[in-house]
């Protein structure tokens, strides 16, 4: 079983549009959207919801006012500045460490498990999709990503699917690491802007750190040919294969508006290039 995780460093380079198209081109695959705090893959995969589950991963401290003796120990110990002068805990600042709960001499603090999101299994025309929605302003995106990836692996095993395709989040932090660790390969979607190049370099460092082999493709490659060459040269120097280049075309947005992967919406250059990239991915993994 192979797992390809699509990442980018910089946001908005086309991860999800590409992943949706790869899904349409794949055979015997399962899919996950690991961008759990801004999940979009389901918007172009026509999912039919099968299962909804609660995601409980953290606990939040709460001070019961009538039990509190206002000694101030909790406020002194809290490293996250979550406890106000009036002895109220700001749930948005609370890191869920439980130090206040354990330390309170009056046992005035509760520390209950909270629901911090939901995850779903859907059927799509291309195969099962496991996706999730982290609650607004919640923590533990990495844990939700790990849960979603474990679930999709189980489905792949049970249904004898040979391929897992994972749409990752932007950045290089906790949910990216959770999406990447243990994958067979990462596809980095970048663009020929200085920001895109800078962010690609950092995300390739993360791939190297976690020993995941990386492939690169360049979206909107005609926007700045000099930067495109810069990316190709950088990748060549580090033996990272560049598996394709896709020119800018409004057709990608038009397909998204229709709720379709672009390869199903158009037969134009963009779709042809994406098909070539998919063939290269299969060859390189």
């Amino acid at each position, binding site marked *: 079983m192979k797992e390809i995780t699509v990442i980018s460093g910089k*946001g908005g380079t086309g991860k999800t549009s590409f992943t949706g198209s790869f899904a349409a081109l794949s055979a015997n695959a399962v899919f996950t959207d690991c961008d759990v705090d801004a999940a*979009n893959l389901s918007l172009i995969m026509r999912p039919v919801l099968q299962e909804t589950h609660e995601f409980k991963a953290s606990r939040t401290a709460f001070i019961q006012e009538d039990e509190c003796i206002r000694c101030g120990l909790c406020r002194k110990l809290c490293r996250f500045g979550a406890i106000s002068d009036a002895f109220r805990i700001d749930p948005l600042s609370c890191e869920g460490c439980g130090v206040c709960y354990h330390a309170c001499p009056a046992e005035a603090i509760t520390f209950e498990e909270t629901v911090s999101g939901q995850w779903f299994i859907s059927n799509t025309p291309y195969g099962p999709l496991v996706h999730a929605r982290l609650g607004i302003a919640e923590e533990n995106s990495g844990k939700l990503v790990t849960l979603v990836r474990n679930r999709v692996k189980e489905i792949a095993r049970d249904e004898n699917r040979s391929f897992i395709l994972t749409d990752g989040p932007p950045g290089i932090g906790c949910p990216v690491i959770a999406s990447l660790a243990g994958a067979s390969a990462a596809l980095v979607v970048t663009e020929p802007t200085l920001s895109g190049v800078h962010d690609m370099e950092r995300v390739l460092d993360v791939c190297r750190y976690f020993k995941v082999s990386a492939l690169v493709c360049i979206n909107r490659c005609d926007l700045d040919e000099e930067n495109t060459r810069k990316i190709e040269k950088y990748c060549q120097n580090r033996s990272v294969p560049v598996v394709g280049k896709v020119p800018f075309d409004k057709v990608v947005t038009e397909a998204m508006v229709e709720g379709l992967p672009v390869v199903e919406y158009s037969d134009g250059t963009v779709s042809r290039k994406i098909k070539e990239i998919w063939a290269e991915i299969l060859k390189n993994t």
Partner: protein
Amino acid sequence: MIIAVASGKGGTGKTTVSVNLALAFNQKEKLQFIDCDVEEPNAHIFVKPVFDSPETVSIPVPEINEGKCTYCGRCKEICVYNALAVLKENVLVFPELCHGCGGCAYFCPQEAIAEVPRGIGVMEKGTAKGSAFDIDFLHGRLTPGEAMSPPLINAVKNEIDSRKVAIIDAPPGTSCPVVAAVKESDFCLLVTEPTPFGLNDLDLAVQMLKKLDIPAGVIINRSDIGTNCVEDYCKQEGIPVLMHIPWDRELAELYAKGEAVVLHSAKWRDLFEKIWMRIFEVFDSEQLKTEKKEVDAG
């Protein structure tokens, strides 16, 4: 006054908006620019500040004094992040999982745990000065391989002088790094695009700001590629749309080269100066609303 620039969806133009706003700031005082996208900081590419030497930002992680440790397991019990494993005659510390809460050290009955700093990234301060701008620039750079950006974001934000105007460039998304970046801002500009992805993530960002009680205004980027969905949504939610930025090859090409458009075009400079006026207007009316609420409540 602290103005955050956020988006939900990545790549909608947060950095374009925040740097051009910063460079079009035409008040007498210095402007502070804080790039809080510490995972992928990009604003320096456009603002081109001269940096002082970087400062390491650390979080405290446990170090076990094996001589004192009795392997009682209390530290492991306390740690909700699974950063400690207690074996028969050994304690394993997984520093990359530690959030630095200090619980293990505080509750260790043998006082066998010390806390030592562990670098997760750097903070860089600098200045950028031109004929029309004067900016104190600040950003954080998370070390690749590190998972936790909020402590670095908080460290960078600690440097803000809230009496002066500050612009915060936030990371994409709606989870803890974004909350850390936009929290305690006076106003948030949400940059989006009029597509299904843009709208879906804008709605998440709007809900997040409601939770944080921060007033918002929307900027629609690539406003001519997509549908009316964002416009309709903003009307329905009563959120002001402060600017439309149509797709423009010149703008995209300048961005690609790391250039800010307001330094190359009087038309764009004018547009961004107008956004400042709109921000001040919205900010003033929000202040009035708050004062009125307080009067009504009192």
